[in-house]
């Protein structure tokens, strides 16, 4: 695909790339986002606990702190405009013994320096009032810490950007970059020319930077494993419950995080690994997560797990480093903006990072406002959350709302169809899962996957090879039932 040139190419459709895309769509410009997977939110952003941090973990004066605090302030309106679930459930950081209390004060001090209001140190009595099931002697309470649905946010940012004129190309992997403003970005699906390139390629952002001769950044993949608890345990905590962070820069310690779908995430761990895409769960860590979580919340049991997963942090520091490194948000060479090492609080910071990218661009290029920019995107129907009257009205208009496909999460046939009809064109089980929540329940798709496949067949008549779990050769089937015998 040669010919017309763009103003901006964004590499990577994770939370940062899509936030940048939306921000750029506020201006009149030709913007293309290139994503190598079959959908947005498939890399680092595909494995996220959805926490909107208030900003007391991050080092004062850093880009992490600046973007965290601003992002936290921007998030409620963004979620409201885009129809993304957002809940200010609060967070407590719990000290289990006397020795940990000073760490609480350190965190509060950090927060104060970062301009985070409303942080309070609370005692055991107040802990019990907020979280009756949690054991602790003192805690730092952050009432404005929040949770959101990170996949719906990522998707909503992309869809809103698309709606406002950004082109989004899935299954498009950048293989090389030539030239220097305009850049020629080579991909497996043709070449693209652009005045600016924004590198938000997550785990591969160092490789992308290398393509234009910037090799001072090396991603050190650090894996975090999680367990997901059944919804029937949601009542055990009210908001987020974290222990005091460990001393070494390996991560935040093992957290209990409720989700906007009423599950609880236990994790993450922190383990430096060799293979940057190795998202396997390991026996040792899974057991450790369980025993440490049980210290915080004695009432959970192994029977409560419905799924485990792992995500990879794009750390810029080696395992033996003493301090964490800051975000890289810089115009490393003319018109090439690198966004590297965007680990936690990356989700919270994303909208603020996007603003910073625009600020950097504005120094070099005049940007004219897009008069037709619409910040709003309609939230998809969540049948399970409607009142009986609303449910009835919908069914009367459309009987596909009256047929439940995913019985664990009460997702209707129409919601599956809508998920498949998504404007990005992502059409696989994970795409349906992120948008409709089907397969996210305790049976993990055992009941509904055959039904979803049937709907896929009816809806767009895919070939057997196109029926995948998460795009890109993750085929569900090897053929029809009789094919192995027919080929004999």
């Amino acid at each position, binding site marked *: 695909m040669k010919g017309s040139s763009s103003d901006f190419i964004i590499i990577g459709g994770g939370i940062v790339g899509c936030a940048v895309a939306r921000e750029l769509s506020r201006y009149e410009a030709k913007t293309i986002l290139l994503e190598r997977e079959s959908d947005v939110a498939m890399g680092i952003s595909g494995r996220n606990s959805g926490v909107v941090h208030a900003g007391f973990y991050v080092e004062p004066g850093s880009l992490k702190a600046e973007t965290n605090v601003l992002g936290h302030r921007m998030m409620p309106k963004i979620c409201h405009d885009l129809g993304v679930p957002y809940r200010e459930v609060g967070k407590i950081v719990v000290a289990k013994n006397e020795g940990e209390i000073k760490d609480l004060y350190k965190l509060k001090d950090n927060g104060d320096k970062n301009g985070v209001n409303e942080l309070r140190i609370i005692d055991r009595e107040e802990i019990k009032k907020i979280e009756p099931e949690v054991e602790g002697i003192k805690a730092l309470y952050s009432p404005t810490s929040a949770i959101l649905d990170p996949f719906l946010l990522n998707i909503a940012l992309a869809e809103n950007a698309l709606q406002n004129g950004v082109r989004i190309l899935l299954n498009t992997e950048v293989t090389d970059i030539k030239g220097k403003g305009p850049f020629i970005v080579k991909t497996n699906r043709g070449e693209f020319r652009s005045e600016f390139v924004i590198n938000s390629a997550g785990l591969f952002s160092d490789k992308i930077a290398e393509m234009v001769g910037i090799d001072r950044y090396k991603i050190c993949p650090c894996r975090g494993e999680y367990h997901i608890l059944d919804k029937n345990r949601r009542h055990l905590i009210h908001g987020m419950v974290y222990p005091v962070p460990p001393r070494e820069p390996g991560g935040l310690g093992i957290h209990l995080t409720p989700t906007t779908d009423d599950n609880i995430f236990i994790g993450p761990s922190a383990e430096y690994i060799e293979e940057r895409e190795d998202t396997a769960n390991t026996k040792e860590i899974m057991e450790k997560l369980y025993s440490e979580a049980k210290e915080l919340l004695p009432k959970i049991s192994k029977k409560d797990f419905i799924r485990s997963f792992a995500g990879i942090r794009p750390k810029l520091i080696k395992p033996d480093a003493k301090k964490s490194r800051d975000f890289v948000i810089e115009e490393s060479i003319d018109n090439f903006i690198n966004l590297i090492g965007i680990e936690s609080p990356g989700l919270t910071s994303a909208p603020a990072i996007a603003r910073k990218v625009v600020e950097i661009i504005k120094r070099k290029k005049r940007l004219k406002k897009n008069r037709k920019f619409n910040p709003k995107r309609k939230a998809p129907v969540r049948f399970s959350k409607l009142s009986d009257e609303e449910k009835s009205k919908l069914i009367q208009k459309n009987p596909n709302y009256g047929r439940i496909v995913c019985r664990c999460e009460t997702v209707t046939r129409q919601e599956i169809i809508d998920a498949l009809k998504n404007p990005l064109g992502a059409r696989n089980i994970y795409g349906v899962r992120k948008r409709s929540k089907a397969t996210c329940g305790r049976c993990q798709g055992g009941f509904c996957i055959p039904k979803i496949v049937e709907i896929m067949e009816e809806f767009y008549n895919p070939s057997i090879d196109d029926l995948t779990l998460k795009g890109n050769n993750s085929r569900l089937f090897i053929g*029809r*039932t*009789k094919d192995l*015998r*027919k080929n*004999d």
Partner: protein
Amino acid sequence: MKKKFICIVCPNGCEIEVRYSEKRIEKVSGNLCGRGMDYVKRELFSPERSVTSSVEVRNGSLPLVSVKTSKPIPKEKIFAVMDEIASIEVEAPIRIGDVIVRDILGTGADIIATKNVDKRIQS
């Protein structure tokens, strides 16, 4: 030669030991009844199995109809029978008991439908 079987004729599941030569059974022990003896005799010299599977359907409300052999067939012919039914299609409507293939591969057993499949409703 010696061989052990778990008899499947009734829930007792006797462990039966057989001493045999190429064409004859010499001794049978461990069975609580005569049916067990018949079972091991058949299993040793001419094992048979019922086969259940599915056949592709044309113009049906379902893509497959479940089928079974009308009586057990020689064990060594199972895969050949499976290849045979993989190559055919049957037209809907189908009713339980319909003969899909008569005397499959000369075994004397028919392939019969075990499910009702209506004609597909054209929309």
